[in-house]
């Protein structure tokens, strides 16, 4: 479906309010979003290198410190950030984060895609079959290196966490999800569908055919296909795949069903997508594309977060004006030189700011209904809870 921009879906309670100190009307009100009990899942998506993981962690911490019971699922956090959140044990279950202040609580986990896949197999196949599948070379390669497995397992884990949250009285009331650094930011939407349609698709039925009935049902094509596959990949591969498929047969339906459930969960009005971008042409282009895609898929978009935005300390001194003024001071004494150089520093910053603002303006013009938040660039990387709190303040426009 072509991405025709739509208005953001109606939420149970309105996420926008205009407080005296709060953000302006077209701004994304992060605090209202996090405080709304109707917000149960927040998905942070965007292209690689824009700060999705940090944004997810900062949102989760802020929500917890404002009283929510939060679980954050991160994909591949920077080492020091992971350590600061106690993510040193890779056991694929959420662990409480120490040092959270205030009434709520925060659990965090880092996705282990192979383990998640293994657990799905173990949970849905008999012990005997599970052993057979886990030992299969084709399964091992599929679960550890298929380009879409990480995306698929991120969504699988989200489904699991969401199910778990509903089971306990004091379970999580908010799950924040980071998405994998994919080739394209859309992969995590496509991978589940893609993998499940492959797993119970035509090719797999073809593979199962020799075990189930006469191959001639497929017509003359079958022999050509298997002989091609053997030529191409070697006979061993086909045997591995056939063994895998035979053992996996009963699980296919379940995979498809869960994938459909996750898809429905993502469309649920209790889910809020945040598209994360950096103020660069390629990241903003990807963000535009993503916003349109979410609309087409009828997935609830809460807004755009633009990270690492440049700021100037003087707003009404333009780049050109500063550069011209700097030239007028050239050749003076030491203080004059300092002033001239400071004007150059400002001219550089102002120029970047003007370019970034152009990009954001262009995005707004093409997506006028999408609220946005801008997070000023920090001098250093974030690797502790204090850093995350600063990012949280910036996200909420309260820094």
């Amino acid at each position, binding site marked *: 479906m072509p991405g025709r921009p739509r208005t953001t879906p109606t939420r149970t309670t309105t996420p926008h309010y205009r407080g005296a100190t709060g953000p302006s009307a077209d701004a994304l009100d992060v605090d209202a979003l996090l405080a709304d009990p109707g917000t149960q899942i927040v998905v942070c998506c965007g292209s690689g290198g824009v700060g999705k993981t940090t944004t997810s962690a900062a949102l989760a911490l802020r929500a917890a410190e404002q009283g929510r019971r939060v679980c954050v699922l991160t994909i591949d956090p920077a080492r020091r950030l992971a350590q600061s959140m106690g993510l040193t044990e890779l056991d694929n279950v959420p662990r409480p984060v120490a040092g959270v202040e205030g009434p709520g609580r925060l659990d965090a986990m880092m996705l282990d895609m192979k383990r998640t896949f293994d657990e799905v197999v173990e949970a849905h196949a008999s012990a005997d079959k599970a052993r057979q599948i886990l030992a299969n070379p*084709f399964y091992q390669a599929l679960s550890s290196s298929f380009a879409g497995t990480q995306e698929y397992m991120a969504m699988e884990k989200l489904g699991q966490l969401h199910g778990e949250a509903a089971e306990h009285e004091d379970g999580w009331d908010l799950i924040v999800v980071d998405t994998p650094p994919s080739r394209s930011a859309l992969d995590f939407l496509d991978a589940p569908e893609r993998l499940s349609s492959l797993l119970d698709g035509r090719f797999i039925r073809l593979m199962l055919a020799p075990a189930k009935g006469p191959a001639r049902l497929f017509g003359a094509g079958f022999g050509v296909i298997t002989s091609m596959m053997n030529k191409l990949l070697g006979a*061993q591969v086909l045997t591995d795949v056939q063994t895998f498929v035979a053992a996996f047969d009963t699980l296919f339906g379940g995979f498809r069903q869960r994938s459909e459930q996750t898809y429905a969960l993502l469309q649920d009005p209790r889910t809020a997508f945040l598209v994360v971008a950096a103020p*660069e042409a390629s990241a903003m282009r990807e963000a535009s594309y993503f916003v349109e895609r979410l609309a087409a898929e009828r997935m609830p978009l809460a807004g755009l977060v633009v990270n690492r935005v440049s700021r100037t300390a*003087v707003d009404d001194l333009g780049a050109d004006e500063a550069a011209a003024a700097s030239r007028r001071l050239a050749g003076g004494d030491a203080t004059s030189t300092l002033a*001239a150089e400071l004007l150059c520093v400002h001219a550089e910053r102002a120029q970047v700011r003007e370019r970034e603002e152009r990009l954001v303006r262009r995005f707004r013009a093409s997506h006028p209904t999408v609220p946005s938040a801008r997070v000023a660039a920090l*001098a250093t990387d974030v690797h502790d809870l204090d850093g995350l709190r600063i990012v949280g303040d910036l996200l909420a426009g309260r820094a």
Partner: protein
Amino acid sequence: MGATTQLHVVTGKGGTGKTTVAAALAIALADQGQRVLLCEVEGRQGIAQLFDVPPLPYEERRIASGLGGGQVHALAIDPEAALLEYLDMYYHLGRAGKLLDRFGVVDFATTIAPGVRDVLLTGKAYEAARRKEDGRFVYDAVVMDAPPTGRITRFLNVNAEVAGLAKVGPVRKQADAIMDMLHSDTSRVHLVTVLEEMPVQETLDGVTELRLAGLPVGHVLVNLVRPALLSEASQQLLGTDGVEQAVADALEPSGVDAGHAPALVEEGHAHVARQHLQDAQHVLLDDADVPVHDLPWLSEGVDLGALFELAQTLRDGKVV
């Protein structure tokens, strides 16, 4: 057409400008009169966007000319098209190829058959690098805009990837030939980074991983290096008492409101802090026993003109 074809693989963490640097590298080679193929493998159409041309098909087409009479051709490698082309090339499969497609075999092989996708992507670059016309190589160089640093070693180590699967067969044979090329003198893997903690750490890890896998590391290309705008003397002056008043007085002849002085001083301090952070990250790279080359940050952003500017610094730095 040259006597050998050099393969330049360009990787880097997302957001560091990997595609920009790969394109600049291709132009730098074309500036030396070479015939270059610039290819991308991730289906992002980053090259088309950078050169402001319509999306690239699975077909080599010229997108730029170098100053020295060379040419840059571009190709977006699509694994499905590469598989069908490969089957046709080796098995002369016209109709049978379509049959494979109809049964979902192409989809299977290019998405979930582990490792096959990467063999197809690197395999196409290999084919282009080895292609000959009239006894000479068609391209002097192939530049690949490759997957990000976190995945590059696995991506290039195609042999290991398919090892658990195809023990015989043409895919395996193809993987072996690709490995030979990647391990030879004619290949280089360049890592693009910016001077921030995470990308620098990932780059250092990437260099170690590549070397462990026996893959030839070329240059670390440091992108978006910001120039120091404050001289040593100015930095010292910035730290003295009463600097705000002194700057306010000095601003007088410039026509800028003296009231801006405190803000300008604040920006000056931020600038110094940023340069220090940049320098500290640079030291980590300098200590890593790998050639490092800086590419300047361009305040206007990246357009075709900027690519030629970056290409020039790559030539000046003898990266190519």
